[in-house]
């Protein structure tokens, strides 16, 4: 089996994470922010799997299962919040929800 080098796997993960972070910082639409967070989570998961493959251990894949479950929960809660905010203010702009400022 032709194996992928761990460095290239980590580079792909880093690029994915940077894309996701860029999406969180740049996007104002809440749905896109949630999607970007999903990308960042997947980047982290990819890094785990690559590290597991590098050390020939199953721990990396176990961590992937955990992250998958966390991502599912995060999306469930996040979408619920987005839905509630949209019902209240009829907008999905993150910058509009800022009553908690000091």
């Amino acid at each position, binding site marked *: 089996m032709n194996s992928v080098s761990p460095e290239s796997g980590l580079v792909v993960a880093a690029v994915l994470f940077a894309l996701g972070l860029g999406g*969180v910082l740049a996007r*104002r639409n809440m749905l896109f922010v949630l999607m970007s967070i999903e990308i960042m989570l997947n980047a982290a998961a990819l890094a785990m799997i690559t590290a597991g493959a590098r050390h020939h251990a199953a721990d990396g894949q176990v961590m992937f299962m955990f992250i998958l479950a966390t991502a599912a929960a995060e999306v469930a809660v996040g979408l619920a919040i987005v839905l509630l905010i949209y019902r209240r203010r009829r907008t999905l702009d*993150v910058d509009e929800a800022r*009553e908690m*400022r*000091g």
Partner: protein
Amino acid sequence: MLELLWLVPLAPLGGFLILAVARARLGRRAVATVGVGSAGVALAAAGAVAAGFFALPAAGRVYEQNLGTWISAGDLAARFVLHLDALALVMMAVVTLVGFLILLYSAESMAGDEGYARFFCYMNLFVASMLVLVLAGDLLLLYLGWEGVGLCSYLLIGFWYREPANARAAKKAFIVTRVGDAALLVGLLVLFTQMGTSDIGGLLARAAERWPTGSSVATLAALLLLAGAVGKSAQLPLQVWLPDAMAGPTPVSALIHAATMVTAGVYLLSRMHGLFALAPAAATVTAVIGAATLLLAGTSALVQRDLKRVLAYSTMSQVGYMFVALGVGAWGAAIFHFVTHAVFKSLLFLAAGAVIAALGEEHDLFKMGGLRQRLPLVFWTFLAGAASLAALPLVTAGFYSKEEILAAAWAGPAGGRWLWAAGAVGAAVTALYTGRMVFLVFFGTAKREPSQQPGWAMATVLVILAALSVSGWWLDPRWLLGGTEIAATLPVRLAGTAAALAGIVLAWYFYLRRPALAARVAQSRAGAALGRWWIGGWGFDWLYNFIFVRPYVWLTQLGRDELLDGPFRTLGRTLDLAHAGMSWTVTGRVRWYAAALAAGAIAAIAVAVWR
């Protein structure tokens, strides 16, 4: 009858307690009965005690009454002991008699005041404190009376406390006399530690045994006692409180000036005259202070416009005479002058009070005039008091006592020509300002109609005091007190008399015969400048304000605003600033938070990698 001695100070004290506890429930009549009656009881008891005293064998007439132990600690055993000798008897008689008369007068003159009960309450405590002071056989008990007198003067000078000026005058009196009181306390402690007793008789006997004449400890103790006396008796340099003490009701002024408070210093020095005999330097200081004060106060009295302030400065000046007598060792003459002064000064104050009340609280001499026919009783009694103050020869009591002091200043054991000269000039000045006062108030054209005549109580008091003022020499207590006879030559006595007469004639010429001349002198440039200088009591108020009051106030401001609060305020401000900075970062923009998180994570990783 001597056993009744305890009743003398305790009767006014009882009156004070009754009035203090039940003054809201008593009617005006009851208040006056208690207030005047307690002093009457004290007077009657004093009379009985005096009768018992004279029944004692003439040699060594002393009576002591121990009312229990006050403080017993180690060597110090202070007792509530009353000591009656000739000096205490004279003082007790004057304080009870004059005190009673003044209270009787105020029962009428204060009738319209809302603080009637409070007034009698304080006045009774005042008289009681003075009697404790006078009868104390123990220095600590004497100090108790001394402080009680100070407290009551504060309460009564500020009696009409709603006026801020009156409250200020009360505070001034209290603080200025406190300076002297502190010195007195130190002096008493020096005596306790050196002699191991606080009993006055025992202490003086031991002092005479242990200390040689002129020893430095004796001089120090005497000077400290003198400082206390100077504060209470309003002598240079602690004299500034007395003119302002006129803020109180007129009977209070009469009591402070005649029977209590101001004379306490004279009494203390006479009581401790054995100590001053051991310290000639301190005695000389006493005489010089007295001479300086009598001149300063006399000239200040010359230019005052307020009737009561003239009398206040006149008291300072007359007490100055007593200090001269004490300083030259003629303490008998000082007590003689105290007795006559108590009589004529209370009379002058009470008569002045009647004038002021009749003119609707008018104090200004130049707005009075022509009251001779309109207030005849007040005029004749005031004239008797004024004649005594001016030392009109032969008829008045004040003449005899002042003559004795002048003679003592000339020929006494420690007398001097300069002291005599100061006293003689002072006598002329006294006669001059007294004449000015009488002629301005009672002669000339009437500027205002009096609205009321004194009633029977006030009139009785005035007549009794006037009769005593002109009764001549028989008030002289020196046959009782003992002490050295003063043999001054006839020319010296005649010169002193002439000085007083010259003052009277000068006053008559200036203020009655040629009033225009007096006005011209007062308006000339030199006269106006002198007047401005003298009307403020030679600028001492200004000086003390400049040296003590302003720096003190400045210091308190400093302590309040900068020194102590500084660090705490800085801390508070720093926290405020930090809070503002932190709350500025809480913008509520989620994306900024995320960016900050990312930046922080990158920074942390960078540190971990390149460290």
